């Protein structure tokens, strides 16, 4: 029994730092290209058996009429027009012999790649494995009989979603563009904001099947090289079949995977990413998702929005304080209400006490059960509202507002004051959307403690939570940094947003 518990505790101590490193499976054999085009073609058809997407088209090169050639690509992944215009036309259109330079030791493929094909990104590949990889990435591949290498031409082209305003982070003032699912577009969006060679993108591919491209983005000289190294080593240790969203990466690189507070930030907006990398953070872009990760991620970032820096600082400070207030309300309000109702009747002003009394009078259940019921109901409505198709969403809000809100009061199951408390809790929880899920758990913990021992329990619960948060780290940086450990300089951009000139000068 005890051994089992110890086993669970050890399991809970999992951390990306002490994770076993990933070694590629030795079964992968590098397969050289055959000189004989027929056998190469057969091999390709074997690999892509039951996949009709591979297009193989034999053709003749006007300059070297004796050598048989094939061009192959995956259907839908390439820009066929570019392939015709820049590759097939120069190859099949005219005899290029008179224009060719001195024939030395160069092979046919080198000559063609260097002197005939006008496509920009053209290079030679040596092995069949590379051919397959590049085919799947949307390259056009030309294989020529008697040549040890194939020509790969980058003509990949597919439909992507346009650049829209992200729905999860809307701003009144500030850029409205958001990332889309294409990593190349996303990188472009960041690069356009930072026109400096110090901006670095390092590519890593993860996922043994999905081969998802990741880009680690940072500014050299600002970002801490140790954190970059740590991040890279953590990402390299990931060994999974597919990476469909940056959430996969997030879960693997999080310092405390069992902790409810996320130690990795996500954003959909390029200006946010650029702001963060200027603060020395590192971003991880992942192909196939508009959500970009930023590390290290601290608690204070939930209080900050990009808009804070675009409006005048006193107003931004007011907004920050509002958010902090919302954070406090959404965590503690139900617990305080239940604590007051069951233990601390004295702290309620007399007039309010009378109205609470008359409201509570017909309620048959305890205020804890009442609070629990309303919170669960709200969570259900919330979840249903997100998952429902937009057309039916209207029905959910009607059911939620009228049926549950009003009827619960009329049926005498919950008091109107409890509805106000739960509604306020719900509204304020949307003010700090990133923390919603962790707050939900803390709120619940405090509610239970408050119903057992009142305010004493709330204080106890909050102390536990704070001790826990003080112990959290995000890539070695304390989670509560600039509050604890306190740094007076950094405090200027926490609850108050100091004037921009003081913040920007400091960054130098």
């Amino acid at each position: 029994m005890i051994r089992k518990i110890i086993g669970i505790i050890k399991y809970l101590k999992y951390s990306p730092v002490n994770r076993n490193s990933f070694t590629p499976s030795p079964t992968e054999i590098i397969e050289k290209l055959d000189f004989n085009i027929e056998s190469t073609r057969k091999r390709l058809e074997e690999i892509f058996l039951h996949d009709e997407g591979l297009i193989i088209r034999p053709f003749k090169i006007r300059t070297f009429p004796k050598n048989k050639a094939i061009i192959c690509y995956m259907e839908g992944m390439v820009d066929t027009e570019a392939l015709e215009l820049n590759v097939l036309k120069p190859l099949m259109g005219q005899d290029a012999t008179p224009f060719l330079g001195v024939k030395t030791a160069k092979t046919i493929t080198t000559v063609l790649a260097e002197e005939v094909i006008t496509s920009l990104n053209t290079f030679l590949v040596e092995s069949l494995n590379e051919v397959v990889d590049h085919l799947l990435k949307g390259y056009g591949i030309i294989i020529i009989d008697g040549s040890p290498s194939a020509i790969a031409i980058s003509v990949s082209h597919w439909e992507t979603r346009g650049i829209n305003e992200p729905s999860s982070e809307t701003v009144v003032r500030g850029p409205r563009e958001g990332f889309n699912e294409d990593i190349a577009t996303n990188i472009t969006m960041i690069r356009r904001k930072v026109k400096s060679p110090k901006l670095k993108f390092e590519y890593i591919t993860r996922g043994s099947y999905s081969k998802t491209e990741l880009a680690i983005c940072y500014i050299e000289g600002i970002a801490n090289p140790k954190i970059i190294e740590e991040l890279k080593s953590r990402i390299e240790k990931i060994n999974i079949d597919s990476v469909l969203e940056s959430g996969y990466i997030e879960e693997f690189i999080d310092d405390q995977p069992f902790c409810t507070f996320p130690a990795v930030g996500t954003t959909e907006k390029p200006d946010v990413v650029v702001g963060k990398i200027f603060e020395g953070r590192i971003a991880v872009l992942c192909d196939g998702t508009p959500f970009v990760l930023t590390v290290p991620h601290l608690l204070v970032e939930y209080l900050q929005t990009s808009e804070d820096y675009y409006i005048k600082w006193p107003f931004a400070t007011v907004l920050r304080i509002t958010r902090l207030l919302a954070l406090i309300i959404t965590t503690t309000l139900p617990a305080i209400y239940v604590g007051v109702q069951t233990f601390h009747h004295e702290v309620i002003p007399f007039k309010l006490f009378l109205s609470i009394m008359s409201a509570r009078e017909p309620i048959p259940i305890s205020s804890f059960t009442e609070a629990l019921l309303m919170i669960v109901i709200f969570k259900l409505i919330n979840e249903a509202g997100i998952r429902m198709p937009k057309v039916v969403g209207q029905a959910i809000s009607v059911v939620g507002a009228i049926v549950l809100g009003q009827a619960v009061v009329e049926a005498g199951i919950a008091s109107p004051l409890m509805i106000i408390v739960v509604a306020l809790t719900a509204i304020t929880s949307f003010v700090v959307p990133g923390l919603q899920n962790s707050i939900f758990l803390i709120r619940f913990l405090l509610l239970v403690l408050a119903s057992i021992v009142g305010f004493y329990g709330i204080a106890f619960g909050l102390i536990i939570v704070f001790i826990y948060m003080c112990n959290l780290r995000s890539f070695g940086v304390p989670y509560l940094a600039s509050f604890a450990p306190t740094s007076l300089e950094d405090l200027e951009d926490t609850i108050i947003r100091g004037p921009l000139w003081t913040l920007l000068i400091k960054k130098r």
Partner: protein
Amino acid sequence: MKKAFLLLMVIVQVITFTGCWNRREVNDLVVALALGIDITEDEELQVTVQAVVPRKLGLEGTEGNATVTYTEVGPTFFEAIRKLSTVTSQKVYIGHIQLIVFGESVANHGIQKLIDFMERDHEFRRQANIVVTKDISAKELLEIESIYEALPAIHIVNTLENNDAVGFSRDMVLLDLLEEYNTPGKQLVMGIITKRGPEHPQYVKELRTQGSAVFSGEHLIGFLNPYQTRGYLWVIGDLQSLILVVPHNEDPKKLVSLETIRTQSKMDVEVRDGQIILKVSIKEEGNIGGQQGIIDKTEAKDIRFLEQEKEKLITHEVTEIFHIAQNQFGIDFFGFGQLVYKKYPKLWEEIKEDWDDIFVNSPFEIEVEAKIRGTGQILAPSSSE
């Protein structure tokens, strides 16, 4: 492992060692609004509680008051309160008590047996108004209904608090009472509540909250009328606002009302030639509130005249209360003894046993400075001539 065990211990201790664990929902309480104490002929305490009926609070247009009174008798205060729950449907909760009433009978008998429980019990609200009845028992008082308020006790508390604007009664909370009761060299003076006419009152509007009750030790020994009460409040400096009525300088039948907006008083004692001299200096500021005559009273000399009249009136009121204290009651309810104790601690040790005798024979000095700061919105009054 050790850490996990420690954590478990901490949690267990935190949950279990929390002192009194008293979990009650709001709807499991009978909320006492007012508490009245009388003494029966068998020398038993009779406790009356006015409690809220929450069912009647929420409903629109309910007839009558949303309260109910319960009465129980017992040898001690605490037992009587506990016994109340055999009458009420839930346990009586006194954490929100608004008004505590000492019946005249219990005040005559002595309040010592009540004070300790009120001080010792953690639930007793220290900010509850406290008052003594005259010509009416506490039980009868709490059974009176209110027309204006749903809760009669609130109506009574409001009338007591409104005395701040006239200064005819002493508005006191439990905390003041405990503090004053414990002060050596000072006797207790409490506000009183009485009936307006000779017949038994039915509604709060038939009650009068003017005047005060004087205690010697724990016993009620007499009452002060409203103007005497005001004289007392002048001395101890517990006046907020009041109206002073003085005669006109040219036509004494026409009266001028002067509104006091700020008062300040300082009590002091001094030993001169082996004799203790009681000193009071009062500073007062106010406006002209209204006058019955038609003569412009805003000339500097007229203002000065009114100020002098005011000073005369205040001096008169204060002198009178000193006479009452020294000659009628023969006790020091101002707290000069406390000042002697603070200023001449050694002397106090010698004289504290017979302080009341010394107080009665001590001369007093009164110094009054009254000012008129404003004349209202007009200068000369309107007239038909």
